[in-house]
C-alpha cells in the first residue's frame, strides 16, 4: 500500500482497520492519535490493484466510536483514570462509501491510509463534480457548502421535494423557502430564473407574509455564510401576497393582522364558481368521496355550469338573481327539495336520502366559504390567483381560514394553475408549489379532488414544469405515489415512532437516530446522485419570518396597492422632477 498523497485530499486521519470487516460499501477506520473524525466528515482512501489503475474509495463518516483498548471490565475505567491500569483510547469511524472510482467494487485494504477529503477530493466524493448545475443548500458539518443537483429539481432528470419533520423544530417551511431563494438567486437556472415562479401556501401564522421584508436580525456572520454559499443575503425581491377577504366585510379587504401593506384579497365570483365547476372542491374532504352524494355534486355542478348566467357580479339561474354564496346554496337546496325540479338538478335515479345528505353538507359550507365566493364585489376588480401574471413569488395566506375553506382554496388554485400549465404545454417557466401539511391534502387513504390534482402534479408535473415542494409531519401518512415521485427527500427532526417507518429507509441507522435530535436548521437531504443523505445546516433566513423581524417594507408594495395609499398625502411631494407638476 502506498502512503503517498492522493491528488488533492487533505491530511491523513487514520487507517482502515482490520479487526472489523472492510467491505466495498462500508468499512471502519481507526483514527490516528491527535486526529479526529466526526459524523458526516468526508474521507477518501485508495486501493492498489495489480495491473490496473488504483481504485479511489470515498465515503462519509456515518458512525464514530471510542473505547479503551486493554480494559476488560467496565470498572477498569476507574483504574485507568486513576493512573494504575495502562490503556489506550482508540477511536474508530464507520465510513459509508459514496463513490468508487473507477467503479471496481473492491474493499479497501486494512492498513490503508485514510485522508480527510478536502477541496476537489471532497467534491468528487460527494459527486459535486458531476453536477453541472449545483444549487447550494447549506453548510455541511465541516462548514463547507453542500449542493443539490439542479437536474433533480427542475425536472431534467427528476423533480419534487418531500420534506418531513416534527412541527416547530424541524423548520420545514424555512428550508423550503431557503431552497426557493437559492434556486432563484444562485443563478443555476440561468435565464429561466427570471420567469420561474413560486406559489406558496401559508398555513400557519403569518410567517410567510414577510418574505419581501429584510430581516432586521440579520448579522454579518449570517451574511458571510450566505456569501460562502454564493448568495446575497436579502429578502425575496418580487413577492405578492394574497389573503382571503375579511368575514362580513362587504368591501372585500384582506384579512391579515400583521402585514398592513401590499396584500391583495383573493376570492372567486359566483359566475366563476359556476362556470369553472368549482362545486366538487367544496366537498374536498377525503371522507366525502366515499359517500353516495358525489353523483349529486357532479350533477349539480354540471347544471350550474350550463344554466348560470353572469349577472352584475352575481349569477342568475332560471331567472332568479343570486348575489351571494348563501343565496346560491339556498337556491340549490330549494330546487332539490322541490319534486318537480329535483330530477333536473340531481339526476333521475338519485334517492331522496342521498339528496338530503348533499343538501345538509352544502348548507354546512355556507359559513366557511361565504367570504371566498362572492357576488357582491365589482367584477372587474382583480381577485384571482394567477402565478403567470403575479410576482415571482406568490404567497397565498390560508392560516385563518377554516379547514374546508383551506381545502377549497388549495384545490381550486392548484387545479387552475395545473390546467394553465397543461395548456401552455411547455415545462418552462417553472412553477414551484410549496404546500405544507401534505398529509391533509393527499392522505394515504381515500381520495379527493385535491389529492387527484396533487397526484397529477407528482406524476406529470415534472414534464409540465410544476415542481411540488411538499412538507408534512409524517411521510408515512402521505399518498405513497407522491412520496416515491419526489426525487429529493429531506428530513428534519423526526418523531421516534415515525423514524422507524419504511418511508425513511433512505436514512442509514445512525442518521435515523440523529434525526431524532436534529436541531432546528439541521436537515438530512437525500438526492438520487449520492447514496448517503447529506447532513446540512441552512443559514438563518435573510428575510423576515415574523412581524417583529421585519425591516422596512419594500417600496413597490406601497405603490401597487390602492388601499394603502394615503388619501391625504400631497401628490407629487418628495418625488423627482419627472412627475407632473400641479
Amino acid at each position, binding site marked *: 500500500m502506498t502512503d503517498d498523497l492522493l491528488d488533492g485530499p487533505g491530511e491523513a486521519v487514520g487507517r482502515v482497520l482490520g479487526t472489523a470487516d472492510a467491505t466495498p460499501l462500508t468499512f471502519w477506520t481507526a483514527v490516528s492519535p491527535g486526529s479526529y473524525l466526526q459524523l458526516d466528515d468526508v474521507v477518501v482512501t485508495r486501493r492498489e490493484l495489480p495491473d490496473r489503475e488504483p481504485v479511489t474509495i470515498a465515503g462519509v463518516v456515518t458512525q464514530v466510536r471510542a473505547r479503551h483498548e*486493554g480494559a*476488560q*471490565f467496565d*470498572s*477498569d475505567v476507574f*483504574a*485507568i*483514570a*486513576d*493512573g*494504575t*491500569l*495502562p*490503556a*489506550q483510547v482508540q477511536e474508530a469511524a464507520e465510513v459509508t462509501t459514496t463513490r468508487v472510482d473507477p467503479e471496481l467494487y473492491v474493499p479497501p485494504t486494512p492498513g490503508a491510509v485514510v485522508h480527510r477529503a478536502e477541496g476537489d477530493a471532497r467534491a468528487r466524493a460527494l459527486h459535486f463534480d458531476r453536477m453541472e448545475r449545483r444549487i447550494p443548500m447549506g453548510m455541511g458539518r465541516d462548514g463547507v457548502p453542500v449542493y443539490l443537483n439542479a437536474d433533480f429539481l427542475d425536472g431534467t432528470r427528476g423533480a419534487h421535494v418531500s420534506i418531513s419533520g416534527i412541527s416547530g423544530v424541524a423548520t420545514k417551511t424555512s428550508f423550503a423557502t431557503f431552497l426557493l431563494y437559492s434556486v432563484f438567486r444562485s443563478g443555476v437556472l440561468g435565464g429561466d430564473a427570471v420567469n420561474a415562479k413560486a406559489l406558496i401556501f401559508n398555513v400557519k401564522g403569518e410567517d410567510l407574509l414577510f418574505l419581501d421584508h429584510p430581516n432586521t436580525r440579520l448579522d454579518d456572520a449570517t451574511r458571510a455564510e450566505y456569501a460562502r454559499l454564493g448568495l446575497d443575503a436579502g429578502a425575496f425581491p418580487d413577492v405578492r401576497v394574497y389573503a382571503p377577504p375579511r368575514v362580513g366585510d362587504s368591501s372585500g379587504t384582506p384579512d391579515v393582522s400583521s402585514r398592513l401593506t401590499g396584500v391583495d384579497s383573493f376570492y372567486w365570483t359566483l359566475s366563476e364558481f359556476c362556470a369553472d365547476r368549482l362545486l366538487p372542491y367544496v366537498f374536498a374532504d377525503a371522507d366525502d368521496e366515499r359517500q353516495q352524494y358525489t353523483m349529486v355534486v357532479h350533477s349539480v355542478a354540471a347544471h350550474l355550469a350550463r344554466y348560470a348566467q353572469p349577472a352584475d357580479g352575481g349569477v342568475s339561474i332560471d331567472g332568479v338573481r343570486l348575489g351571494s354564496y348563501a343565496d346560491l346554496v339556498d337556491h340549490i337546496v330549494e330546487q332539490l327539495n322541490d319534486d318537480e325540479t329535483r330530477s333536473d338538478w340531481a339526476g333521475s335515479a338519485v334517492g331522496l336520502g342521498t339528496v338530503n345528505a348533499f343538501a345538509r353538507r352544502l348548507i354546512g359550507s355556507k359559513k366557511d366559504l361565504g367570504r371566498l365566493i362572492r357576488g357582491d364585489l365589482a367584477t372587474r376588480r382583480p381577485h384571482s390567483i394567477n402565478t403567470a401574471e403575479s410576482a415571482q413569488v406568490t404567497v397565498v395566506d390560508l392560516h385563518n381560514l377554516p379547514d374546508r375553506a383551506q381545502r377549497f382554496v388549495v384545490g381550486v388554485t392548484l387545479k387552475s394553475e395545473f390546467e394553465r400549465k397543461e395548456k401552455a404545454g411547455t415545462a418552462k417557466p417553472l412553477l414551484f408549489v410549496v404546500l405544507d401539511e401534505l398529509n391533509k391534502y393527499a392522505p394515504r387513504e381515500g381520495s379527493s379532488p385535491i389529492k387527484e390534482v396533487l397526484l397529477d402534479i407528482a406524476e406529470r408535473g415534472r414534464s409540465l414544469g410544476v415542481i411540488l415542494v411538499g412538507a408534512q409531519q409524517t411521510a408515512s401518512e402521505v399518498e405513497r405515489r407522491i412520496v416515491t415521485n419526489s426525487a429529493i427527500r429531506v428530513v428534519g427532526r423526526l418523531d421516534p415512532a415515525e423514524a422507524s417507518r419504511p418511508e425513511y429507509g433512505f436514512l442509514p441507522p445512525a442518521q435515523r437516530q440523529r434525526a431524532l435530535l436534529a436541531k432546528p436548521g439541521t436537515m438530512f437531504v437525500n438526492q438520487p446522485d449520492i447514496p448517503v443523505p447529506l447532513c446540512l445546516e441552512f443559514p438563518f433566513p435573510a428575510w423576515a419570518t415574523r412581524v417583529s423581524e421585519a425591516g422596512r417594507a419594500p417600496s413597490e408594495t406601497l405603490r401597487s396597492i390602492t388601499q394603502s395609499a394615503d388619501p391625504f398625502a400631497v401628490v407629487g411631494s418628495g418625488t423627482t422632477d419627472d412627475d407632473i407638476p400641479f
Partner: protein
Amino acid sequence: MTRFFVDAWDPAYGASFEAGGGGPAAPSSAQVDADVELPAVDWRAIGVRRDVLAPEVVLLVDGVRRIDASLWTAEEDGGSFPGIAASYAAGVVRCDLERGAAELAGARVSRGLFTASPSAEDVVAGRVRYPVHRVGGTGELSKLPPAVQGPLTALEVEVSNAARIDGDLLVVDGPLRSRRQLPRTLGYIKTQHSQYLDARLTAVVTGLTPGQRSPVFRLGTAWGGYSWYLRLPVTSGAPWAGIVRVECSAELTDAQAIELADLSLVTLPRFASTPYKDPRAPQNLIPIAGLERRLRGLLGDARLLHRVLTAAARGIRR
C-alpha cells in the same frame, strides 16, 4: 540450514509452569539477618509512616514469553535436538499518579529459537525471524523454557532504562537477580516458594494486617539483599493471603533499604487488583496485568506464528 520439525502438540502443554497456591512450602537454607531494622526479638508489624509520600511516577516492568512451537532438528549424523521457537516481550508502564494517567512507556518484542543443536540457524518464517540462541548442555526439552528468561530479563532492563526519570520508583516483577545495580528499584515477588524466617518471625508476617509490612531483613544468599514482607489489601483471612515479598539491592545501606521499604508501603497497595477480575489477585498488580495483556497482544497471534513456522519447516524440507 538444519531441517527441523514442528511438534504437533500445542506448546502450552509442554510449558505448564509451576502454579503456586498457599504459602511457602520448602524452608530455605539461606542465612537471614533479621536485625537490620529491628532486633529480631522486637519484631512487629510496621504501618505506614505519615511523612512518606508516594512518588509521583512509578514505573512497573514486566515481561511475557510464549512458546510458539516446539521443534526437532534433524542433524547430519541422524541425531536430533529439541528446540523451541519462543516470542517474548518486555514493557514498562509509567503510572503518573499526579496526572492520573498510566501509559505504556516502552515495549520491545523479540523472538528466538532456543536449542542445543550445533547446526541450527536462524529461522525465517514469513516476515518473522527467530535468531538462534544456543543453549549449553545436552539441551533436553525441559531445560529450554527457562533459557528464555535470560534474554527476556535483558530486554526488561533495556526498556526500563529507556523510561527512567529522576525521582521515580521502578518496580520489577519478580526477583531483582541481575538488576541490582538499577537505582530506586524494587523487586516484587508474588509467590512465596521458600520460607526464609523462623517460626516466630513468620508469625509476625502472617499476623500482618492489610497495609502493614514486616521489618526489613537481609538474605545471605548469592542473589541476596534487603527484603521485607508486605500485606496488600485483601479480604481473605488466610495466613499468606495478599502477602508479597519485596526486595532491594544489597549494595544499599540499611537506612536506604528502610526508606525504600516505607516507600513501598505507600505505593504498592493502591495497585493491588480485585479478586473477581484477576485470578492472581491481589498480588498481581493492576498495571502489571494490563501490561501483560498489551504485551501478549504485541507477541502476535500464536496460531498464525505456528502456521508460518510449520510452513517454513516444510519449505526447508523440500
